[in-house]
């Protein structure tokens, strides 16, 4: 039995969130949602179904920030020890001004590593459209794409239609042809 992708289109984020919950209730877990703006309703439904928890990008930012502070400590303390000139009668190691450098590098390296984490976890840049992606999912429509065996596709379509999908398309994965 071949595998298919059932592509459903919704008019509103509320209906799309309802579709996600309906799929979960029908014990269908292999799906991907597409939406044009960060809808709280859809993200809540996805979180509820997948139990993902907060994004791991925060760890990248945390470790980046720590790296930034440590780099600043090494830079300021290290170079002051190496070039221990007394300027204006101030101590060679003057901690208060070094805190400014630590703060700036915390923000700089933390921010850049957070961005790196964002690209890594999203596997970006993406060069080809993901299966089931439609251009209107970046404009004004909400999509749910379910990958399943052809035998189950009918049940999936029925669940999505009941949830309010306005259009449902089936795509055979091997042949990549579409029919309604």
């Amino acid at each position: 039995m071949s595998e298919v992708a059932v592509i459903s289109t919704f008019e509103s984020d509320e209906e799309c969130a309802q579709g996600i919950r309906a799929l979960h209730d029908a014990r269908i877990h292999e799906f991907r949602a597409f939406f044009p703006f960060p809808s709280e309703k859809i993200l809540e439904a996805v979180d509820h179904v997948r139990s993902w928890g907060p994004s791991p990008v925060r760890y990248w930012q945390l470790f980046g920030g720590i790296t930034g502070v440590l780099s600043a400590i090494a830079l300021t303390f290290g170079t002051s020890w190496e070039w221990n000139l007394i300027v204006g009668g101030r101590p060679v190691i003057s901690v208060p001004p070094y805190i400014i450098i630590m703060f700036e590098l915390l923000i700089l390296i933390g921010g850049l590593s957070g961005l790196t984490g964002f690209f890594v976890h999203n596997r970006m840049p993406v060069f080809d459209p993901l299966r089931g992606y439609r251009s209107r999912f970046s404009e004004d429509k909400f999509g749910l794409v379910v990958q399943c065996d052809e035998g189950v596709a009918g049940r999936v379509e029925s669940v999505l239609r009941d949830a309010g999908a306005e259009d449902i398309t089936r795509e055979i994965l091997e042949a990549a042809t579409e029919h309604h």
Partner: protein
Amino acid sequence: MAAAVETNLQPRYIDVDRQVQRAMAPGGLTYWMWVLFCAFLTALGIGFWTNQVYKGLGVTGLTEPTMWAPYITNFVFWVGIAHCGTLISAILFLFRVRWRTAIYRCAETMTVFAVATAGLFPLIHLGRLWFFYFVVPYPNERYLQPDFRSPLVWDFFAIGTYLTISTVFLLTGLIPDCANARELATGWRKTLYSIFSFGWQGTDRQWRNFQMVYLLLAGFATPLVLSVHSVVSWDFAMTQVPGWHSTIFAPYFVAGAIFSGCAFVMTLIIPLRRFWRLQDVVTIWHLDNLSKIVLLTSLIISYSYCVESFMVWYSQDPLEMTTFHQRYFGPQGYLFWIMVTCNCVIPLLLFSPRVRTNTVSLFIISIFVNIGMWLERFVIIAGSLATNTMPSQWRFYTPHVTEVVITVASFGWFLMNFSLFAKFMPIVSMTEMKEGISWLRQAVRTSYPYQKAA
């Protein structure tokens, strides 16, 4: 009639795309003439700067004791302008302020180009700019390292970090919008938006990570924005110069930066919404809220002027007293009073709801604020240096044509970059507008029943 109102309150998402895309449509003759004019000003500035590099700083009016005058004034002015972008995009995002959605992209863009403009002035100001890299900490054969106790080195780190993080923040927010624009564009524009969208397709996983990185960047940018202008103020406050050596400088500069930045956003966005017909996206409600921030910060800096003067009087320090007396009643005292009029008196008009909802009056007030805030920096920097601790050295700065042209050119350079960006990139965030469009319409209709809602 009821049906028409219902339609206005429930616009379609595609309507937002159409309105923003109208602004991104190929520019007409007027637009390109404007860009060309800005490019001409920039080229003129480059010409004068080249002459200054070739002949030395002697071609300027900079002389002892006023060695910091228009260039450093421009530096502080443009950093201050840059301040507001991150305030609107990051701080208001953290506070979930809904009216930021229509204007934050414009403010962020302004931030990036304003910091880029500000960053040029320390270079322009250097007599031997080819030694600029001395401030960069790296192992070298000169056995020298930057002194991390110097505010100028703090400035290098603060401005560098601010420019980088502001750019990252702008580009991250642009990713979903460029994906949106990519689907509607053709030809080379499609390629451009494909590059800047990094293949974004708006999946649940992508949005989840996007939400997190955007929140964290906003969280990081918030203390950064407060720190940057504080650090800039310490360039002055850490010295012993009368008129500069004050503990009030950091909050005073930050409030002034927000004041001038918000006014500059109005200066930019009011013509933009008029010429590119963005009135349904950037509504009078947004401008009203922005002008309330301008009014609030105007009151804060008016208070700061009073406190600064009071502290000088209370200290009875003869040097400080003399400097301030010269600032108010000296040969260039008229600049101070123009500044007070522009920054403290004219913005009081914003107490009137009629003024706040009239775009012409808002635009005029914003221009006065820009002039006032430039003068504020000039009065503090050049005025304080002119009356130093040696009365025999006192000398007020007189501008020469080089500084005037380079100052005007900086506006040309900024406006050219901003105009080009606004034409080729979504200057209003389509994704965030879609998220809150229904709420926006209701807010506009509730707050301004006499205004056209859609």
